[in-house]
């Protein structure tokens, strides 16, 4: 074969492979829209606004799981953000590099643990502990009708929005910590040295030099963590309690889009039920892909 022909064939093969990625994305969106159309068409806007999820009567309102998805992901960010920033600052700024590298690898191992293992750990270890040492004491202490009671009222079994968020926080922590670390390393050394030279403390260097420098990408890192938390399935399915409708308190059982799909798909007997789950998938697609593309635009290419 002539070299020119072979070169052209090879380039075409590479291009075709790249197009597979485009096709996967397009296929994903198209199949979810196609599969979810019957349910969306029948329920209309009430699919998004109603929280009545009643497969027996073919009534599908997804507000419960949509709210659960957003609530658990946002709640997960509350502990994950300071923890990830703390880990990143400690690894890059405060401890000697060899120690930092070793701890960095250990933290990244957290990201390597499969989701279902987190789920089992959550179900068998975290939930019972949480029920006995957090939920019960609060239930005993709370006056009926008080603010405390309304915030934390629940059946003390450990399967709730709050524990699901805790698991999610641990799961997204390594991703966010590793991006924060890379961002901090990207700050030019002479800027740090200038600040230290003027007598600034580590805290002041972080506040006045490092954080302003990485601000934009750091917001991206949080959105990436949020995107991952929004779509996480198995860990949440094990521990969120899988109740339809709006959770009434922080310690109440709930559901997320992903957990609802994972739980009900096998039992989706009617066509409309399956279609409603596909429509849920479409909603999840829109939410996560908004978060993830925002994250990517903010973080930029150099950082993983």
């Amino acid at each position, binding site marked *: 074969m002539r070299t020119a022909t*072979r*070169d052209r064939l*090879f*380039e075409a093969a*590479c*291009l*075709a*492979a*790249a197009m*597979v*990625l*485009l096709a*996967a*994305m397009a296929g*994903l969106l198209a*199949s*979810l829209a196609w599969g979810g159309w019957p349910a969306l068409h029948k329920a209309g806007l009430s699919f998004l606004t109603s929280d009545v999820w009643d497969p027996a009567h073919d009534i599908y309102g997804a507000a419960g799981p949509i709210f659960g998805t957003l609530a658990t992901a946002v709640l997960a960010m509350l502990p994950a953000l300071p*923890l*990830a*920033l*703390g*880990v990143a600052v400690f*690894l890059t700024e*405060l401890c000697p590099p060899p120690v930092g590298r070793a701890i960095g690898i*250990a*933290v*990244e191992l*957290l990201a*390597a*643990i*499969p989701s*279902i*293992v*987190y789920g*089992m*750990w959550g179900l*068998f270890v975290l939930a019972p502990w949480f029920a006995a040492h957090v939920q019960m004491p609060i239930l005993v202490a709370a006056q009926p009708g008080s603010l405390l009671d309304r915030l934390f009222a629940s059946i003390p079994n450990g399967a709730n929005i709050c524990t699901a968020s805790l698991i999610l926080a*641990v799961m997204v922590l*390594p991703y966010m910590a590793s991006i924060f670390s890379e961002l901090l390393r990207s700050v030019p050394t002479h800027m740090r040295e200038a600040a230290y030279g003027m007598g600034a403390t*580590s*805290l002041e260097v*972080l506040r006045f030099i490092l954080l302003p420098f990485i601000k934009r990408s750091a917001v991206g890192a949080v959105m990436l963590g949020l995107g*991952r938390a*929004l*779509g*996480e*399935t*198995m860990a949440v399915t094990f521990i969120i309690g899988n109740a339809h409708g709006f959770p009434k308190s922080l310690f109440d059982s709930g559901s997320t889009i*992903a957990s609802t799909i*994972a739980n009900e798909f096998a039992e989706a007997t009617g066509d409309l039920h399956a279609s409603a*789950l*596909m429509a849920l*998938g479409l909603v*999840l697609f829109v939410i*996560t892909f908004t978060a*993830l*593309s925002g*994250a*990517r635009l903010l973080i930029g290419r150099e950082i*993983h």
Partner: protein
Amino acid sequence: MLRRDLALLRRRRLANGIFVALALLATGIALLALVLILGELVLKGLGGISAHVFLLDQPGPGEPGGLRNAIVGSALMCGLGMVLAVVTGVLAGTWLAEYGDGKRLASFVRFLNDVLLSAPSILMGLFVYEAVVRPLHGFSAGAGALALGFLATPVVTRTTEDMLRLQPHALREAGMALGAGKAHVICSIIWRASRSGLLTGALLGLARISGETAPLLFTSPGNPFLSLRIDQSMASLPTLMFQYALSAYDDWQALAWAGALLIAVAVLAANIIGRVLTRGSFDT
């Protein structure tokens, strides 16, 4: 004046001390979580491991049994998925690194690939269900492998592109100077030079999919018997763990922990080997 300065200094020192302590605490919490989870996994998992695990198929409640059908199924579906992911991912990554420069299509593909990297795996399962399982009227190991392959492809693509970009231009120029075509230069010089990097991509992709449960629920939810047929549903460790962990039987739960340990060991090994290999290629 001096006293006020001293007070300010003390306050700044104190604030800094608290800050350092908090950063240390955060790291401690992350490490504690790792130790707690891995500890529990080893503790409960080792108890469930025996020769039966590898020699017998999944049991009914109260019967002796193991995970043989699930181990074989997982290996087969992940293997098939990886073939798909490596072929597509390496070629796509090559296009991005060697042909895509300056093209808008390339930056678009790169962007989508980065988004797909973190995409919820459950959506990939729904996609393959709608595109393959429903038209063919049945779950199959092939559909499962396809879903897993789609999940691993972005990882391989990304690593391939990064690795090829590390190769010096002189290498390409030297090949061209000898009269080799671009395809020849890429296949026999660039790919060979970044061998360990490409292998890393494959290992990271494998690590990404070997613990995946959600996409398999809709494509190949399980099979109580040892099956090697690609056109029928096949068991896998994660889906079996999902079923057994949520069951009420102690021996099923023990098997689920044993399966969890097996998967975690495989994923961690793939990750660590991948990391060691990359370190080598970054050094040279």
